[in-house]
């Protein structure tokens, strides 16, 4: 996947644990783990909004685009 989730980096900078963050944004720790481990297929704007609000950051701090020549999927 060309989109990288840098949530763990932002969390480390803010010194917040997964459990605390999950509780503050109202998602399960399991779902937060899916997001952190690059397993998520999509992120809702509402979740991104909550993440940015709680972590006091911009969407670009959490999400990053890295061009991957092997990943040429367009519709997936």
């Amino acid at each position, binding site marked *: 996947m060309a989109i990288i989730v840098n949530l763990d980096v932002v969390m480390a900078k803010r010194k917040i644990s997964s459990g605390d963050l999950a509780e503050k944004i109202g998602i399960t720790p399991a*779902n937060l783990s*899916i997001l952190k481990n690059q397993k*998520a*297929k999509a*992120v*809702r704007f509402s*979740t991104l909004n909550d993440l940015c609000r709680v972590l006091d950051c911009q969407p670009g701090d959490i999400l990053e685009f890295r061009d991957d020549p092997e990943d040429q999927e367009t519709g997936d």
Partner: protein
Amino acid sequence: MESKYNNKIITWSKVATVFFLILMAAADVIGVSSARYLCVTWTGRTDTLALAIFTIVYYAITVMAFILLISVFKLLSNMSRDLVFDRKNTRLMTAIVLALVFTGFFFVLLAFVWGEAAFLALTAWFMALIVLSVKVVFDKAIVMKNDLDLTI
């Protein structure tokens, strides 16, 4: 309300499936004599070839019916456990489709001694087509569900 209604449908469908399984078992027990009876009354033939083909097709179709009914029962059991969009169900649907397709071929074999069986073959293949269409819909739904499950 709707869920209770659906649960009743599933329960009664399971009861009907068990009833048909018992009928199939009974049909197998009296297979030789009932195949002979059907052969004589439907085709009017009493020669060995017609009787042999009728008996073979009769037993082959009951085997297919067992596969089909057991698959339907498992499918209904999964539904009652809220296991709907799952690969297990599409595999069961594949088994149903294959059982119907083979049933069609056995009816084609039967058509050599009883011409009307060709219509039964067409009916079986048409049913296979319908189940195959539902299976494809389920396959698509499973992909969509997986995507939705991984949307945070």
